[in-house]
């Protein structure tokens, strides 16, 4: 029955309001099966709220979501055994050992007793806990804790994994290992929805949605988002980047100016005839010397461009 459902998650008009604050605003979402789908957005953009609505922890104020072919609101209990969920905060038991935690989760998901030991041994080996089987989970490092949490979330072989900022407290090398695991899982057919505020992580997703203030401001494959950004990205090498930034950010046609060391990264709307000339003349007016090149947009540029557009009315 599941194979003929193309999408693991379909949400229409999903909305959550806490009083007057709209945390998630009419979110439409189509998450294809066996893919890694990213939620990219700053803190407070509604990523956690959206994930909580998708697993039935929060009741949507409006709209509905279909997960693995079932309506979340009606079938939350049937969905629970089929979903793995990893909370933002480490939520396993710090006063239990690695194996005790796994064992507890195995029992909670009623994993058959006779296969329990082999499944736990398998996970212990696969997630690198062979030497730390009997270490208390509370004494693990940030990266190890996240690995253990992932091992627990996938123990019952869920079809869908919901990961809420799984790597926010993890160093880059551990993050890379963590993502290697995610790709492995996706290749084996697991659908993964992962929220993050790291650009490099977002780039690895098969598909991603950018959230800003509860609104979805972009949705697509990372490369596609980069090519259809609707902006020209320019790099400016100025002797005095501080002054150059001040001069450029006042110009009405320049969407954003970001300083990266001695360079400036500038976004200009695509409909402008000659963005390069625009920047050059603007700098000249202020008597500033600089080299100006057009460069390929990065995901961060996409993020800046799309969040600017949506929050423009706020500011």
């Amino acid at each position, binding site marked *: 029955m599941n194979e003929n459902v193309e999408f693991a998650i379909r949400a229409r008009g999903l909305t959550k309001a*806490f009083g007057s604050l709209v945390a998630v605003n009419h979110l439409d979402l189509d998450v294809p099966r066996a893919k890694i789908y990213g939620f990219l957005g700053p803190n407070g953009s509604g990523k956690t709220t959206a994930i*909580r609505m998708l*697993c*039935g*922890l*929060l*009741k949507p104020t409006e709209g509905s979501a279909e997960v693995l072919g079932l309506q979340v609101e009606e079938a*939350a*209990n049937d969905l*629970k*055994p089929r*979903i793995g*969920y990893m*909370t933002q*905060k*480490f*939520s*396993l*038991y*710090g006063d239990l050992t690695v194996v005790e935690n796994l064992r507890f*989760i195995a029992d*909670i*998901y*009623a994993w058959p007793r006779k296969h329990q030991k082999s499944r736990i041994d398998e996970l212990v080996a696969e997630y690198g806990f062979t030497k730390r089987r009997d270490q208390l989970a509370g004494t693990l490092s940030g990266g190890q804790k996240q690995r253990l949490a992932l091992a627990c979330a996938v123990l019952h072989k869920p079809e869908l994994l919901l990961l809420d900022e799984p790597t926010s407290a993890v160093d880059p090398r551990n993050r890379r290992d963590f993502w290697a695991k995610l790709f492995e899982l996706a290749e084996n057919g697991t659908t993964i929805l992962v929220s993050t505020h790291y650009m490099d992580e977002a780039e690895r997703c098969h598909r991603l949605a950018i959230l800003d203030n509860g609104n979805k401001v972009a949705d697509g494959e990372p490369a596609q988002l980069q090519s259809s950004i609707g902006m020209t990205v320019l790099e400016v090498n100025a002797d005095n980047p501080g002054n150059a930034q001040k001069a450029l950010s006042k110009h009405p046609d320049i969407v954003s100016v970001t300083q990266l060391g001695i360079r400036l990264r500038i976004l200009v709307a695509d409909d402008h005839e000659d963005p390069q000339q625009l920047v050059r003349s603007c700098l000249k007016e202020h008597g500033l010397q600089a080299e100006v090149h057009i460069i390929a947009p990065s995901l961060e540029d996409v993020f800046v461009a799309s969040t600017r557009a949506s929050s423009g009315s706020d500011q």
Partner: protein
Amino acid sequence: MMPIRLIAIMRKELLQLRRDRISLGMIVGLPVMQLMLFGYAINMDVRNLGAAVADQANTHMSRQFIADLAQTQVLSITRSVATPEQLEEMLRTGQISVGVHIPADFDRRVVDRTRTVAHLLIDGADPTIVSVAGQLASMPVRFDSGSYNRPSARTMEIRPFYNPERRTAVNVVPGLIGVILTLTMLMFTAVAIVREREHGNLELLINTPVSTTQLMVGKVIPYIVIGLIQLALIVGIGRILFDVPVRGSLFGLYAGAAVFIAANLSLGLFLSTVARTQFQAMQLTFFLLLPSILLSGFVFPFDGMPKAAQILGEILPITHFIRITRGIMLRGASIFELGNEVLMLLLFTLVALTAAVMRFSRRLD
């Protein structure tokens, strides 16, 4: 510099307190409750002790004597039986605190002046009742206009049952079992769930197929075992060090305790759905502990309390449990004779557990 920082800390403290509704409630609630308990509910003048009379003389004088006893308002004579054995039976099952036995030769005893005229059968396990009985025992017998002057101070002979030596330990230990179990069981469970919520474990758990009932009952059962171990400790030490007896069946005592523990744990679970932090859970526990000590009959005789306090006391599980422990340990009653108390505890458990399961949200909003 200093005052600015000092004020900053104080302001922060007040702001936090303002948002902690339970702590705020305690600031007002605790003193108000204490005042009500001590000033109004608890009164040290014992009145209306449940009593029955066995009047084997049934003469004009004996009826006058009983009327005089009732006049004092210390006793509330509700029933009249035929034999002193029936009085003992009622005493044992906890229906009355005092039994008045008037022997058939009452009139002759009154005239004799050297003998006591009647017997006061009392529950010696309660020191307040013992002291009240002492005052009653010297009440003069009136005969028409005058009263008989007696050479001895005593009109009536006191026959304290169950604790004839009047040792405090015998009175205190059965009640103490209730207080200790209430404290530890409430605290353990109330804190247990709140801790999971604080640590974020709960968010993970409610996303698994585990049901609310499984979660709650699974939390409670281990603590029932712990409670029964505590019971064994108190009864054992009471026996060895203070020679506190268990006159009834140990099985009955354990059965009663198991139900009582379940009642407290259910209440603890309910508290855990109200409290947001471990600190609040502790506060609520202490909030309930105070009436449990004062209104349960542990410190003051239940019969002697005003009606309002009795109603509050009847709601508390410990009141029923103290009746069970005193009944079984001191009076040798069987658990079946105390069936009503067990039933009340079961009812309490059912209500508290249902409320806890209903209040426990499987969602976060």
